[in-house]
C-alpha cells in the first residue's frame, strides 16, 4: 500500500513537469534554436545565446511588453536581433541599484530603462568615465562605480545585439577549436560559391521574420536549410544535432525551476499529513520529494554533460547543489526513521529558498555555462572536494532548519506545561544531533580533501588561506557545542541554538569570505555581491529570533534548563558513552 502511495506522489511530481502544456506545441523555430554558435569559449545553441543575453540585459528570462503581453526569451532575442521595433526607446535594460538611479536622476521605483535614457544621462556617463579612469590607475572602485560599469556592459551588449549579424555561425573548416566567423565573413574560410547561398538564406530569414508571426513556419524552414548548409561545410567540427538539442531541451525543461515547485507541493502535503490521518499522505509526500530529487539530479546530469565538467564550480551551482544535498540528506533520514516528517518539513523550505534564489536572480547568481579558469580545470581532487564540502554545508543547513522547528516549539508551544510538546522537542533535538553528525563528517572530509587539492595546486596542505580558515572555523563552531554537550554545559536547547547560530559560520565560509572579506586564493568567478545587505538583514532577524526564544526559555527559572539537561542526558548516551565501568 505504501509503495502505491509513494508511486502516486512520485507520478504527481513528474506530472508537474509537463506543465505548462504549451511547451508541447509544435515549435516552428526549432531549427533556429538549435543553430550552433561559437561564443565565449564554447559552442552552444542559439537558444542559449538568447537566454543568456536576455537574462543579462533584462534580469529575467522573459520580457513583459508595454501592452502587457509577455515575450519568451527567444522571441525577445529575435526581436532585438532582427530589430523589429525601435529598441532605443524600449524600457528594457535592467537598472536596479537604487543609489545609481538616484545619481542618474531616474525614477527610483522604475526597474528597466531604455537605451536612450541611459545613454542620455550625463551623470551616469560621468560615473562610468570616472570608473574607467580608476580602473586604468588600478584603484579600487566604489559600489556605485561597479554598478555603473555593469550598466555600461548591458548597454553595450544591447547595442551589439540589435540588428546582430556578428554571431560566429560559420564553422571552422578543419580545426575543432578553430575560430568561427560570421556569415558575412564566410568567404574568409570558404569559397564565394559556397558562401553565397548562406548569405542569401540569412537575408531571407531576416526579411521573412519581419513579416510577422504568421510567417514563422517559413522562417523555420529557411533556418533548417541554413543550419544544414552550415553543418555540411564542416561536419566534423559542427556539433551534432543531439548535442545541440540536448542543451535546447535543458533550457526549456528548466529542471531547477520545476524542482522547487515539486518540493513546495511536497512540503504542503507533508504538512497536511501532520494533522489529517497521518499515514495516508506520508508516503505520497515522500514520492513527491523523490520525484523532485529525480528532476534535480537529471538537471545536474544534463548540465554536467553540456559543460563537460564536475557539477559544482561556481556560486550558482553550489547553491543548487546545497538545495539538492539538503533534500537528499533529509530523505535518507526519513527513510531510516519511523515517519519522522520533520526532516523533510525542515528541508523543503530551505531547498525551495535556495532554488528560487538561483532561479530568479540570474544577475547575482550567474547560471550561464562558461569555460573554467585554469586553476579549476583538470583536477580529480577538486571535483570531489567541492561537492563534499558543500554537502557538509547542506547537512548543517538541514540542522539549522530542524533547529528552527525546535526553537519554534520552545517559543510558541510551552514545553513546560505540555509533556507531548516536551517529548516532541526531545525527538527533534535527537534528529538535529544526527544531522549535525553527518555535517561534521562531511565537512571534515571536505576540508581534508581541500587540503589534498591544495597540496597539488598550491604546494601546501594547509596555509591558513581565509577560505580554508573559515571552513575550519565553521567546523569548530559545531565541535564546541557538541563537546560542550558532553560535559553537560548545554542540553537540547543549547544544541538547537547552536545549530542555528553556528550556521552563520557556514554562511561566512560559503559566501562571506568572497563577498565580505574579498581576499585570498579562492576569489575566482563569484561576481559582484548585490546581496550583502539582504543577507545581513536575514541573519540579524534570525539571531533576534534566537535571542527572543532564549529569553523566553530562560525566564521561567534556571531549574527548567537544569532539569532538561538531566532528562536529556540519557539521550546523549551515544556521545558520552563510556563503557559502564564494568
Amino acid at each position, binding site marked *: 500500500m505504501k509503495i502505491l502511495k509513494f508511486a502516486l506522489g512520485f507520478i504527481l511530481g513528474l506530472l508537474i513537469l509537463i506543465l505548462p502544456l504549451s511547451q508541447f506545441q509544435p515549435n516552428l523555430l526549432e531549427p533556429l534554436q538549435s543553430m550552433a554558435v*561559437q561564443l*565565449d*569559449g*564554447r*559552442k552552444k545553441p542559439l537558444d542559449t545565446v538568447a537566454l543568456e543575453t536576455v537574462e543579462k540585459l533584462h534580469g529575467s528570462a522573459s520580457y513583459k511588453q508595454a501592452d502587457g503581453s509577455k515575450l519568451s526569451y527567444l522571441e525577445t532575442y529575435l526581436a532585438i536581433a532582427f530589430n523589429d521595433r525601435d529598441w532605443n526607446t524600449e524600457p528594457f535594460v535592467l537598472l536596479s541599484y537604487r543609489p545609481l538611479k538616484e545619481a542618474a536622476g531616474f525614477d527610483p521605483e522604475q526597474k528597466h530603462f531604455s537605451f536612450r535614457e541611459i545613454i542620455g544621462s550625463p551623470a551616469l556617463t560621468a560615473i562610468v568615465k570616472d570608473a574607467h579612469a580608476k580602473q*586604468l*590607475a588600478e584603484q579600487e572602485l566604489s559600489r556605485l562605480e561597479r554598478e555603473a560599469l555593469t550598466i555600461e556592459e548591458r548597454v553595450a551588449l544591447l547595442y551589439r545585439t540589435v540588428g546582430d549579424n556578428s554571431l*560566429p555561425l560559420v564553422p571552422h573548416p*578543419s*580545426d*575543432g577549436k*578553430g575560430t*568561427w566567423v560570421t556569415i558575412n565573413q564566410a568567404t574568409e*574560410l*570558404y*569559397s564565394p560559391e559556397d558562401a553565397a547561398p548562406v548569405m542569401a538564406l540569412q537575408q531571407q530569414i531576416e526579411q521573412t521574420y519581419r513579416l510577422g508571426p504568421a510567417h514563422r513556419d517559413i522562417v523555420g524552414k529557411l533556418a533548417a536549410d541554413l543550419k544544414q548548409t552550415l553543418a555540411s561545410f564542416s561536419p566534423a567540427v559542427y556539433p551534432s544535432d543531439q548535442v545541440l538539442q540536448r542543451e535546447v531541451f535543458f533550457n526549456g525543461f528548466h529542471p531547477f525551476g520545476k524542482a522547487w515547485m515539486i518540493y513546495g507541493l511536497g512540503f504542503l502535503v507533508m504538512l497536511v499529513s501532520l494533522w489529517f490521518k497521518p499515514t495516508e499522505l506520508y508516503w505520497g509526500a515522500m514520492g513527491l520529494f523523490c520525484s523532485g530529487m529525480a528532476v534535480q539530479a537529471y538537471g545536474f546530469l544534463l548540465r554536467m554533460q553540456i559543460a563537460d565538467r564536475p557539477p559544482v564550480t561556481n556560486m550558482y551551482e553550489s547553491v543548487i547543489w546545497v538545495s539538492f544535498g539538503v533534500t537528499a540528506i533529509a530523505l535518507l*533520514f526519513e527513510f531510516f526513521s519511523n515517519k*519522522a516528517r520533520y526532516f523533510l518539513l525542515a528541508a523543503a523550505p530551505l531547498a525551495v529558498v535556495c532554488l528560487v534564489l538561483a532561479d530568479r536572480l540570474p544577475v547575482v547568481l550567474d547560471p550561464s555555462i562558461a569555460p573554467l579558469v*585554469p*586553476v579549476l*580545470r*583538470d583536477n580529480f581532487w577538486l571535483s570531489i572536494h567541492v561537492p563534499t564540502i558543500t554537502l557538509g554545508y547542506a547537512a548543517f543547513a538541514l540542522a539549522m532548519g530542524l533547529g528552527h522547528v525546535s526553537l519554534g516549539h520552545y517559543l510558541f508551544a510551552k514545553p513546560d506545561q505540555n509533556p507531548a510538546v516536551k517529548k516532541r522537542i526531545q525527538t527533534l533535538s*535527537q534528529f538535529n544531533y*544526527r544531522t549535525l*553528525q553527518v555535517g*561534521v*563528517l562531511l565537512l*571534515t*572530509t571536505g576540508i*581534508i580533501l581541500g*587540503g589534498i587539492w591544495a*597540496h*597539488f*595546486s*598550491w*604546494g*601546501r*596542505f*594547509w*596555509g*591558513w588561506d*581565509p577560505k580554508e*580558515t573559515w571552513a*575550519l*572555523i565553521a567546523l*569548530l*563552531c559545531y565541535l*564546541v557545542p557538541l*563537546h*560542550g554537550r558532553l*560535559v553537560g554545559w548545554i542540553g537540547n536547547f543549547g544544541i538547537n541554538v547552536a545549530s542555528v547560530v553556528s550556521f552563520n559560520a557556514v554562511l561566512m565560509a560559503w559566501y562571506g*569570505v568572497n563577498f565580505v*572579506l*574579498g*581576499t585570498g586564493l579562492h576569489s575566482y568567478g563569484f561576481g559582484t555581491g548585490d546581496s550583502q545587505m539582504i543577507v545581513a538583514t536575514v541573519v540579524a532577524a534570525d539571531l533576534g529570533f534566537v535571542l527572543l526564544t532564549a529569553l523566553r526559555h530562560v525566564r521561567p527559572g534556571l531549574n527548567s534548563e537544569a532539569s532538561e539537561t538531566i532528562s536529556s542526558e540519557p539521550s546523549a*548516551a*551515544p556521545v558520552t*558513552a563510556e*563503557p559502564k*565501568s564494568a
Partner: protein
Amino acid sequence: MHEAKTIQSQNMTAQTQSFLPQNLSKIWIQLQQILGSIKLAVPLLASIIGVLIWATFYESQVGSPTVQQVVYKSPWFGALMFLLALNLSVSALSRYPWRGPRKVGFALTHFGLVVLIAGSAAVIHISTEGMLLIRTDQGANSLVRVEGELLDVVGPDQAEKQVNLFIKPDNTVSPSEVGGLKLLRYAPNTVTTTRFEPGGPVANAAVKLQLQSDRMGQTLERWLAIAPAGYSDVSVGPATLELRQANTDTELEALLAQPQPQLGGRFGSLQLGENPAIDVEGSLDKIIDLANGLQLRIDNFWPDFRLDSENRPESASDQLNNPAMQLSLRLGRGEAAQQERWFIFANGQFDPIRTSVAGAALDRDALGLSEVSYDVQPPAPEDYFRVVMGPEGERFYAANSSKGFKSGPLEAGEAVTPGWADFRISVAEAIADAQVQREVVEVPEDENLEGEPALLVAMPDGSEQWLPWGDPVALSNTSGDYYAAFSPRMLQLPFGIKLEDFIVERNEGSESVAMWTSQIRLDDPHQGVRESRRVWMNHPTWYQGWKIAQASWNPGDLNQSTLQVKLEPWWVTGLTWLGSLMVVVGTAVIFYGRSAMKNLKAVLPEPGQEESSDAEPPEMGLAARL
C-alpha cells in the same frame, strides 16, 4: 559518567606512577586530568575560533604576509596549537585500552588530529619554497626568489653578517640591529632624487630652468644635464625640455634649425622581407597584396599593448609605449587556403607570435617573410624648449610651439616665452662641470610615483642613511667604512631549469586562456640528468624531492614563465596524508561504527557468545534508532 572515567584513569596512572612520591603523583594525575579534559578542550577550541575570526578580518586589512608572520607563524599561535595537540593526545591516551568501535574511532580521530596538526605545522615551518623566473630566450636558471628580504653587512673589521629581515606592518624591521648597523625603518616606496653640483671631474653642462606662468600661478624648476643619460630630455606636461651639446658649428646650426614636418603615419612602418614598407596607420583594415601571392591585412593595432583581466588584448593608454599589431596573412583561397594570425611587437624585436587559422603553416623563408621588422619612431615633440651649448661654451635656445618657432642666444636672467600659454622660461642656474648628487626620498604609497623599497639604517656614529633595494652601498663612518646590501632573498637550487616552450591554450574562438603550460628542461650536471617535462596548473612535476609547479605568467611576454619550486620532506607529506585518513575514518567509526557492527552481526551467523559479552551499550545509530 565522567566520574567513572576519572576513577578508571586514576587507577591506571596510579599503577604506572607508583614509584613516585605520593604528592608528586597526585599532582601528575591532576595535571593529566586537566590536560586531557573536555573542560579544557571547549574553552581552548572557543578561543581558537576567536583568534581565527579576528585573524581573517585582520588579514583583509593588512594582507596575508603580515598575518602569516604575526599570527599563524608566531610562537603564541604555535603554543595554542601545541596545547590543543596535547589535549587531544592526553584525552585519547586516557581512554586506553581502546576496545570497541567507539573508542577505536575516538582514538583514531584524536590521534589523527595530532598527526594532522604536526604535519600542517611542518608544511608551513619546515618546507622551503620560492619562485623561479625562467625564459625561453635564456639558459637554465637555478636561482629561486624566496619570500622576504635579506640584509648583508660587511663592517670595518671585514666580518660579514647576513640576516633575513621581516618587515612588520608598522614598517619597523626585525631584527633591529645587524653587524653594528641599527635598522631604523623600512619604507615601501622611495624615489631617488637628483641635484647637480659643480666640481665634477669632466666637463658636463647642466642648467636649472625656471618656468613661470602668472595665469596658472605656477613656477616649476627642472634640472637638465648632458650626463647622466635621462637628464637631457625632461618632459613637463605636453612639452619637452632638452639640453644638447653642439661640438661643431654645423651641429649647432642643425640643433637650432626649424623642425621639418614629419611624413608617414604615427604608428610606424612594418617591413616584411623585400616587400615595400607598410605604413601601419594608413593600412589598418585594408587588404594589401604582397609578393608571392600573399595577402595581408592589419586587423588591429594597440599603441600600448597589454592583456586585460580576461586576457584579451587592449591598450593601456594612447601612448606608444608598447606598440603591437595583429595581422592576418593568407595564401590561396577556399579549402586550400593557408591563413595565419600574427602578433608583431615593436619593442624587443622578438619574432612574431604566430597562430594558424586555416591550412598548413606558412613557409616563411619561401615566402620571403624571414625578416620581419616593425619600427615606431617616437614622434618628434611638437612643443619643445631646447637649450644648446655651443662649441665655445656659449648658450642658445630653440623653442617650438603651436604658435611658431623661435631661436636665439640664451643669456642668464633673460626670459623667453616659447608660446605655451603664458610660460616664461629662464636659466636659474648653470654649471659647466656638473656632478650628480642622489638622495633617497620617501614618498607616500598612494601617489602615482612608482618607487622602490628602501631601508633606513643608523651607523655607530649616529649618522643615518637609506639603503636602496638591490643596490649595494658603501657607508662611511668615523670608525671605518661599512658595506651593506638590502636585497631580495634568493636560494640556489642543486639543478637548473630551462624554459623550452611556453604554451598558452585559449578557449575556442576567444582570447580567454584555457590553460598555460611550461615545457621545461631539467639540467642536473651532478647527476648527468637532462630531461624535458611539462608543468601546468594542478599538474606539478617532482625532481629530487623538489616539487615544481606552474605559478604565474606574464600575459605581455609569452617567453616567460614563473614556477613555484618547493622542497617538502617526504615524511611531512606522509604525516598530512596519514592524519587525514585517520581523522576521516575515525569520525565515521565514532558516529556509525557501532550500528554498522551491529548490523553486520545481525547479518552474519553468530560464531559464539564470547563476542557479545564484550558488547557496548546500545548505540543509537542511524539505522538502529530513528
